[in-house]
């Protein structure tokens, strides 16, 4: 009687705290959720079923989902979503790098300070004067110099706080504003990106014209060599993990992710040389065979601690886009001399099918490096106890060893959290940026799944079908998150 009463009391206390939130949660999340789940099984069309027209609503069973499987647009948009997510590992690496650099910036003031201050003041004054009066074309370099000097001065004065603020700048500007800004920057005719790119490409054109062989054969060979090195490194790491009798299935998943996804993309990528595809296929198969042969039961879970699998996963994710870039290098090399005949043009970023997605990825990357992820990493770095580093110093550990054996494992929970959130957001994302910059892109090149949901639901008005897509997307995100929680945070306790 007594414990039961206490349990009830505890339940009431907990509920009382939760209640304000739970009310909103029910009203604006759970109820709409149930509604949308129900809608996924109907033919709800906003043109026929609204507050003015009440046509009978039909329960269509699984029809929406069956239609989805045969919808080429759904598969294309799914591919687009994954493509845009390839930037995530770079964004995470960038955030970590920025955080590491920020913690290393000396907080002491240096002796050159007064001199710097004087120069900067003069520069700022003359820069403002330049803006107020008429200005020459060359004034822009002066302006940049002024900007750089003032940033440096402020950085030295504040001991690095200014850099952190500036890195965070894209995050406290509203997303839509930065997207509009980048849309202007990408403009092929008036944007500064192509303006700055034109002389570089002219130089490249003349280089290709003078020595075409270097690009026809040299570039692919270099790229292939680098790709082989990356693949070999991955294979070696995976093999050592495997023979170290760590979790087989996780290594298999990692291997498949590293090599299988680029393989699939390459094979589906029209115009790719067969040799590349076969090469990647062979190396992928080699990893799987090697790893499978090493263990009698590759699907079984190892009993020993699975240390470092998160590391493995992160490295695999990082090498995946790297391999894609290298494959693109192999592809582009032989085509360059033909292009150089008429001069290599800067890309028509948002207007071209091939460049629209990389353009959006670069914007996201730019915004993501100094985002909340960096703040999380900074907090994580701050909470690593200095004793660990002192001990490592006594043992004579190098900077790389200190990073891989102290910093990285200690940051594993943060990395895991950022990775999970990044994957969840990435799979649901791409709507805002595509809506603002490309409206879905040339020929749907930047239409992600969330954008497809929006256009089905609010542009064509097929609410039922849109809900079905949304629930399939949810299932995908859920599956990925389960995989992550299952395999990702195993080495949190390193």
């Amino acid at each position: 009687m007594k414990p039961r009463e206490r349990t009830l009391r505890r339940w009431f206390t907990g509920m009382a705290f939760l209640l304000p939130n739970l009310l909103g949660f029910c009203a604006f999340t759970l109820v709409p959720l149930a509604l949308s789940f129900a809608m996924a099984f109907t033919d709800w069309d906003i043109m026929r079923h609204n507050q003015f027209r009440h046509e009978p609503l039909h329960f269509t069973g699984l029809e929406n989902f069956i239609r989805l499987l045969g919808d080429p647009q759904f598969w294309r948009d799914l591919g687009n979503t994954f493509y845009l997510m390839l930037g995530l590992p770079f964004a995470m690496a960038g955030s970590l790098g920025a955080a590491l650099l920020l913690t290393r910036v000396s907080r002491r003031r240096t002796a050159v300070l007064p001199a710097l201050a004087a120069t900067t003041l003069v520069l700022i004054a003359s820069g403002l004067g330049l803006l107020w009066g008429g200005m020459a074309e060359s004034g822009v370099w002066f302006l940049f110099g002024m900007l750089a000097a003032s940033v440096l001065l402020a950085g030295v004065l504040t001991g690095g706080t200014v850099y952190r603020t500036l890195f965070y700048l894209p995050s406290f500007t509203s997303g839509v504003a930065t997207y509009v800004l980048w849309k202007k920057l990408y403009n092929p005719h008036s944007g500064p990106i192509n303006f700055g790119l034109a002389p570089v490409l002219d130089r490249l054109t003349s280089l290709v014209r003078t020595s075409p062989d270097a690009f026809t054969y040299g570039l692919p060979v270099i790229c292939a060599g680098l790709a082989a090195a990356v693949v070999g490194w991955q294979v070696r790491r995976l093999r050592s993990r495997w023979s170290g009798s760590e979790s087989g299935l996780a290594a298999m998943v990692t291997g498949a992710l590293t090599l299988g996804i680029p393989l699939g993309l390459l094979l589906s990528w029209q115009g790719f040389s067969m040799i590349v595809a076969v090469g990647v296929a062979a190396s992928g198969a080699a990893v799987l065979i090697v790893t499978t042969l090493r263990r009698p039961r590759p699907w079984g879970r190892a009993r020993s601690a699975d240390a470092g699998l998160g590391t493995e996963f992160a490295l695999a994710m990082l090498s995946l886009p790297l391999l894609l870039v290298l494959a693109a290098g192999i592809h582009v090399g032989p085509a360059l001399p033909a292009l150089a005949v008429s001069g290599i043009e800067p890309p028509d970023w948002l207007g071209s099918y091939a460049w629209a997605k990389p353009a959006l990825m670069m914007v996201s990357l730019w915004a993501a490096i100094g985002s909340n992820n960096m703040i999380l990493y900074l907090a994580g770095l701050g909470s690593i106890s200095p004793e660990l580093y002192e001990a490592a110093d006594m043992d004579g550990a190098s900077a790389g060893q200190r990073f891989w054996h102290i910093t990285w494992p200690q940051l594993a929970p943060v990395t895991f959290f950022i990775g999970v959130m990044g994957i969840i957001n990435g799979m649901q994302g791409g709507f805002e940026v595509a809506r603002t910059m490309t409206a879905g892109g040339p020929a749907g090149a930047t239409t992600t799944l969330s954008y497809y949901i929006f256009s089905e639901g609010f542009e064509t008005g097929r609410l039922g079908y849109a809900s079905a897509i949304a629930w399939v997307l949810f299932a995908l995100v859920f599956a990925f998150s389960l995989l992550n929680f299952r395999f990702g945070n195993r080495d949190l306790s390193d």
Partner: protein
Amino acid sequence: MTETKGISSKPPGPARGLGLHGLMTLLSLGMVVPFAWMVLTSLKSLAEVGDPAWLPKQALWGNYPEVFSVIPFLRFMANSVVIAGWVTLLQVFTSALAAFSFARLQWPGRDRVFFLYLGTMMLPGLVMLIPNFQLMVRFGLVDSYLGLVRRPPSMPLARFCCGSSCWASRGPSTRRRRSTGPVSGRSSGR
């Protein structure tokens, strides 16, 4: 950036410190330059905007006062402030209470409710946008402040962050989470 002396073993010398500052300045410029371009373009005349040159021929500072006469800027600003204010107030109040309930209190069914919350986080906001819109229409909240101050979909995120940091600081006496749980106390690397 409170206790960071452990990360770099030796304090960098003046030369290395300055080099680091230079590198950080360069990286910061990468973040600032797009905005600088925006500011410079804002000083251009409409005819000059299509011109790839960075600097306007004549800086038109009058562009800024003009904003207030072309669009009802103050009105838009007030809208943003009102909406943001209410959303923040409600979010912080309810999320803080909920995070406390999830992290520090023990009550039957707590973990299940928490995972229900977590699960909804994985749903695309657009899923809820469609029925939410229908509900707003039904309740006559379309075209009203109240309709916008409704619970935004990012709300569970706020609680998750808050919640997970509270998980991390929970004492050993509370129930240990399995590996499927959020970032758990034992593993926070303290």
